[in-house]
């Protein structure tokens, strides 16, 4: 019997100027034991469907049409009290951020027991026993002891397990998991997805798995529904949709996914919904002053780099506690290559980038750029020459541009600071850069909030190019972006290397992306550089156990259609 049926569901958010249609006549069904993936880019309306089913739509959003039924009985349009008995009891939800889903002031046991008693009406002793069982079931070691701990005493992955245990308290028939693994590292992500799969199989629970990640969809779900701007564009068995997509949007989405096993020259330009952009980095090369290549062939050399952070301050130096974020890291980057650094969160990869960018001071070791020892330069004036030649592209396109500055001021700032050009020539350079990254020079008169995430990241790139640097540091430049936008940005970066001869340090946690972008890769773990190798060599023959582990956790995506990629495969 079908657990959950969604028919012609429409959700509207009336705003001041118009009614925003978040979900437009969507259909979806969930069978017992089935994991149904709901995939789409940001703004596609996938989370809104989850919220609508749970009755958690935020005002002024409301269900404008269609029905949601649970086991054949309509539940949409019920009053709040009736919804409450169903929500949490028969349908549970798992949210993205495990930290904010748990109450930090209560032990996990208190939270579990309260929920169990509310739903199952068990005695105190039985509830506690049941809570321990649940913690054990979701893979928390020593559940007897850990039940009395507070959420902050658990790691991110463990916390998400607790959240899942909490969702299981009422023995629900349907679980809605909204991006349950997005905030987690790959290794933990794999474990959590495995747990969800097991639970679905063993308890015959139906699961709606909302995600933007094609890898998660391909590896975890039985069925998939693809959404685009509030509407369902394609739905079917996962293998079928991923391997042989019918709709143009699905095709373009799948083509934009970086593959771990194939290397492409450029990602195919998306043509769906008029979102393809024109950028002309090659035109930029004509006015580009390329410096003499460094004699040794090595542009940046990092030797025994170390960084410690104060963990616990104290008046007496011997009582202070330090944390070694980067520990004796050495590598070098050749002129014109893209050097990747991969690692999980907390591995110190961003700290390395920030030291090279002179944003952090080093606590030991040497950085040499084109035969100049940067770490020996102390004053801001001595560093000017170095800073002109390096630029950085940041992770978060929403915070990397000053919201109170106009776009042309933002791009002109480095030019003015280094006094590279004067008067009208500055405006000319800004216009040219905006043009080349596909925004058009009129974009300069606007403010950052008027642009989408991908457009902002292109503004960031334009700013980074303004001083005509030799070396670009990219710190997770696409991890906050949708997959189709990621493809655009990666293409631009590839062009920068090819046409302008830029050398890059590319920091990422995403191995398939690294494979597409980098010539050589360094793997970092807990502040140390574990392995450095040519990219193809590293993916084919990883030397270190940790590298092998990382590679094995990477989604294989073998079932994904390669249509549209054929001309680009290297």
């Amino acid at each position, binding site marked *: 019997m079908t657990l959950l049926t969604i028919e012609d569901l429409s959700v509207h958010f009336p705003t001041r100027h118009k009614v925003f249609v978040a979900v437009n006549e969507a259909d979806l069904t969930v069978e017992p034991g089935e994991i149904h993936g709901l995939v789409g880019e940001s703004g596609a309306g996938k989370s809104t469907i989850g919220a609508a089913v749970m009755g958690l739509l935020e005002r002024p959003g409301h269900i404008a049409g269609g029905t949601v039924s649970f086991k054949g009985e309509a539940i949409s349009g019920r009053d709040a009290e009736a919804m409450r008995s169903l929500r949490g009891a028969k349908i549970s939800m798992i949210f993205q951020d495990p930290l904010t889903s748990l109450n930090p002031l209560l032990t996990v046991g208190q939270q579990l027991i309260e929920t169990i008693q509310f739903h199952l009406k068990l005695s105190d002793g039985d509830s506690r026993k049941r809570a321990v069982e649940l913690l054990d079931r979701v893979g928390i070691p020593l559940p007897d002891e850990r039940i009395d701990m507070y959420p902050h005493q658990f790691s991110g992955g463990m916390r998400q397990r607790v959240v899942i245990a909490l969702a299981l308290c009422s023995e629900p028939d349907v679980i809605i998991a909204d991006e349950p693994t997005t905030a987690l590292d790959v290794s933990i992500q794999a474990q959590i997805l495995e747990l969800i799969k097991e639970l679905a199989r063993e308890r015959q629970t139906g699961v709606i798995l909302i995600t933007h990640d094609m890898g998660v969809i391909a590896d975890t779900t039985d069925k998939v529904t693809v959404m685009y701007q509030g509407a369902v564009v394609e739905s079917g068995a996962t293998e079928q949709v991923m391997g042989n997509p019918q709709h143009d949007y699905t095709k373009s989405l799948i083509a934009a996914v970086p593959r771990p096993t194939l290397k492409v020259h450029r990602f195919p330009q998306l043509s769906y919904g008029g979102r393809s952009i024109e950028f002309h980095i090659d035109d930029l090369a004509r006015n580009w002053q390329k410096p003499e290549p460094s004699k040794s062939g090595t542009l940046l050399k990092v030797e025994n780099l170390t960084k410690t952070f104060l963990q616990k301050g104290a008046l007496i130096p011997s009582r202070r506690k330090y944390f070694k974020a980067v520990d004796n890291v050495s590598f070098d980057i050749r002129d014109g290559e893209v050097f990747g650094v991969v690692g999980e969160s907390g591995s110190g990869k961003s700290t390395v980038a920030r030291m090279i960018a002179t*944003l952090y001071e080093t606590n030991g070791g040497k950085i040499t750029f084109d035969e100049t020892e940067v770490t020996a330069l102390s004053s801001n004036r001595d560093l000017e020459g170095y800073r002109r030649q390096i630029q*950085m592209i940041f992770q978060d396109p929403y915070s*990397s541009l000053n*919201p*109170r*500055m106009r776009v042309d001021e933002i791009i002109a700032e480095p030019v003015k600071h*280094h006094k590279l050009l004067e008067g009208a020539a500055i405006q000319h350079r800004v216009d040219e850069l905006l043009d080349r990254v596909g925004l058009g020079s009129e974009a300069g008169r*606007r403010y950052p909030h008027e642009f989408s995430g991908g457009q902002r990241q292109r503004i960031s790139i334009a700013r980074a190019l303004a001083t005509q640097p030799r070396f670009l540091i990219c710190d997770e430049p696409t991890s906050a972006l949708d997959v189709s936008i990621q493809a655009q940005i990666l293409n631009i970066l590839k062009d920068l290397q090819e046409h302008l001869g830029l050398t890059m340090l590319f920091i990422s946690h995403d191995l398939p992306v690294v494979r597409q972008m980098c010539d050589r890769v360094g793997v970092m773990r807990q502040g140390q550089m574990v392995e450095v190798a040519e990219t193809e060599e590293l993916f084919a023959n990883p030397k270190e156990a940790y590298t092998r582990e990382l590679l094995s956790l990477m989604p294989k995506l073998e079932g994904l259609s390669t249509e549209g990629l054929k001309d680009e495969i290297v």
Partner: protein
Amino acid sequence: MSDQTSQSAPKSMFARAWDSDFAYNFRRTPVAVGSAFVVALLVLSAIFAPLIAPHNPFDPASLDLMNGFTAPMAANEFTGDVFWLGTDDQGRDVFSTILYGMRISLFVGFSAVLFAMVLGITLGLIAGYVGGWIETIIMRAADVQLTFPAILVAMLIFGVAKGITPIEHQDKMAIWVLILAIGLSDWVQFARVVRGATLVEKDKEYVQAARMIGRGKGIIMLRHILPNVLSPVLVIATISLALAIIAEATLSFLGVGAPPTQPSLGTLIRIGQGFLFSGEWWIILFPSVTLLSLALSVNLLGDWLRDALNPRLQ
């Protein structure tokens, strides 16, 4: 959606401001519109007091002692003159003294808040961005300041200033000392809020980007961080304005503020309280009502501003 907006031509500043969600929210909040109207009315009538007021209460030539204690809207028994809000013991028109008094109250209020704001923002920015022992000194000084009631601090400063100024300059200096006293007792909340906001902003990537370019601390603080920490400052400034006006009135009422030659609303209330029980109620009532409406509407405006600028409530 943003793709569309970036295609259309940029609008004029005014059209953009009128169309903004902020202006829309204002138009839709009756309390905000009402209090803004009252504030605008009072401020404008204070500014144009010389044009509006029927008499100049500071010009002894225009005063007639025979007009003393005339009740509102009643003809004086000796001269036959009629005053809207009556006259005080010296025959000064209460309406005119209120207009002129409000000028002084508002001038002191605005200047004191401006002074507190400049001081507080500067110290808050430095404390937040530079950190270290400089931050410790600034913020501990702020903590110490908060342990004394603001009015006490103001009175202390006022007393000290009075002690060191020669008697013949005291009346002239009084207003400036008042501004200094109220401003110095009020900078702490600006410094605290700006420091907090600066700590949040300085870790954002646009500040990192400016540092990478090689921008110095001063430019980063002024051009990058300052414009992004101003919205909470605006809210505090509005609420501080009401508090500063009340503080000035309190000091003047206690006799340590504006001198009788330049009476503010507080001074008028002090003068009026002497006649409260002898039947001349209008001398104290009308200045009090003016002070109340001014402080209340500024406060309501500040409340609305706080809600409108708080993204979590939108």
